[in-house]
């Protein structure tokens, strides 16, 4: 058994909140640069040039890439042989978010009640996802999630008879409905299977996977490629002004599901797709 102080979790979450919000991951930068090279319209090129200039400024000056520094989605993969000491784990994660968003000059965008509203003032609570895995390590991922894109996400409970075509049509329909709102070029996360809630979680995990890592199952890897091409054929383009680049990535995650169903969730993200991971 390995003992880990929750204070260490706080420190790491604080640092990851700041780094994720100021430095765009290399795979996302690469995808944006290769899309820029392929665009031929002057408005689309101009938009992508400014997007690239923007993340370079953020990187150089350690300022947020986007002012919507999001809800702090924190994923903990906890080895089953780990014992946390020194306090409450949930509170330690929230303290990390509180410090990260305060010390990093990040925007506080969380309201304490969904209906009655009221900003909590420190971007807590984190959206915390925990998973127990073998071993004695703890893997921490912070993925700040902006809501311009989150609001364009969708979930549907398909009958199995809808088949693969039903999923394909739903992806296109969701991107079409999103249009210019989620700050395209977007990243599309698709979760298929599990239960109602698990499908949504899969979709969120899909947008956390690097864009240059395909699904390990060749069937889904091919589907990712095919659907990315179909999404880009819509012509929505950078910022919705028309062009080749509607999405820079489309990732699919799946789980087994029930004989009676085929849940499918689509989580839309923007070109500022942020995540940062550290293993303890």
């Amino acid at each position, binding site marked *: 058994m390995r003992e880990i102080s929750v204070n260490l979790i706080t420190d790491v979450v604080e640092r990851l909140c700041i780094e994720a919000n100021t430095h765009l991951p290399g795979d996302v930068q690469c995808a944006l640069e290769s899309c820029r090279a392929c665009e031929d*319209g002057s*408005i*689309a090129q*101009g*938009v992508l040039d*400014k*997007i690239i*200039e*923007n*993340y370079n*400024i*953020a990187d150089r*000056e350690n*300022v*947020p*890439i*986007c*002012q*919507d*520094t999001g809800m702090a989605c924190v994923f903990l993969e906890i080895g089953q042989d780990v014992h946390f000491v020194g306090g409450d784990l949930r509170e330690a994660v929230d303290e990390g978010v509180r410090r990260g968003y305060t010390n990093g*000059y*990040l*925007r*506080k*965008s969380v309201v304490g009640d969904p209906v009655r509203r009221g*900003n909590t*003032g420190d971007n807590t609570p984190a959206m915390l996802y925990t998973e127990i895995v073998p071993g004695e390590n703890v893997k921490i991922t912070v993925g700040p999630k902006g809501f*311009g894109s989150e*609001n364009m996400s969708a979930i549907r409970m398909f009958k199995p008879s809808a088949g693969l075509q039903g999923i394909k049509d739903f992806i296109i329909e969701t991107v079409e409905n999103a*249009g*210019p*709102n989620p*700050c395209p070029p977007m990243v599309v996360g698709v979760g298929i299977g599990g239960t109602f809630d698990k499908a949504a979680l899969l979709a969120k995990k899909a947008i956390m996977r690097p864009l240059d890592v395909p699904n390990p199952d060749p069937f889904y890897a091919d589907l990712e490629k095919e659907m990315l091409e179909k999404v880009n054929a819509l*012509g*929505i*383009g950078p*910022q*919705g*002004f*028309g*062009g*080749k680049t509607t999405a820079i990535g489309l990732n699919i995650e799946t789980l087994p599901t029930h004989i009676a169903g085929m849940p499918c969730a689509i989580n839309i993200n*923007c*070109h*500022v797709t942020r995540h940062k991971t550290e293993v303890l």
Partner: protein
Amino acid sequence: MEKHITLPLTEELARSLKAGDTVYLTGTIYTSRDAGHKRMCEALARGEALPFDPQDAVIYYVGPAPAKPGQVIGSAGPTTAGRMDAYAPTMMSVGARGMIGKGARLPEVVEAMKKYSGVYFGAIGGAGALLAKCIKSAELIAFEDLGAEALRKLYVEDMPLFVIIDSEGNNLYETGRADYLAQK
């Protein structure tokens, strides 16, 4: 077409801007988003004045990140404009004919734009660090309790924008995509 414009956004200037124009905007603008718009429209309904003179004004739909020491303002890109659709016709009716945001607008907003010679500018969503560089001064003028959503007066220089919807109702989201698909 590329145009450098200086505010105020008079009716004449507004009508000269066309959907698809690239615009570099200089002048004083005001920030507001959901909660601020709600308060302003409630104030107007009570017959009260707004915290700024709305005549020929431009409102930037933004909730900036906090300024780091030495910064004028933190990252400050546009938020989704559609959430302000319920308030935009009222704001235009008192003279605030310019809006800066991103994303689709409802037909009733476009109708109000035609009626009041409104212009909907798009700033690049997600380019908050770049856009903050164009903001030369920022002053909090009302609704301080709203935090990022407080009403701020900004002076901007050469802020890079696109005219998305012009005063005749032409819409770059429709024409830009149609043009691209037609060429393919």
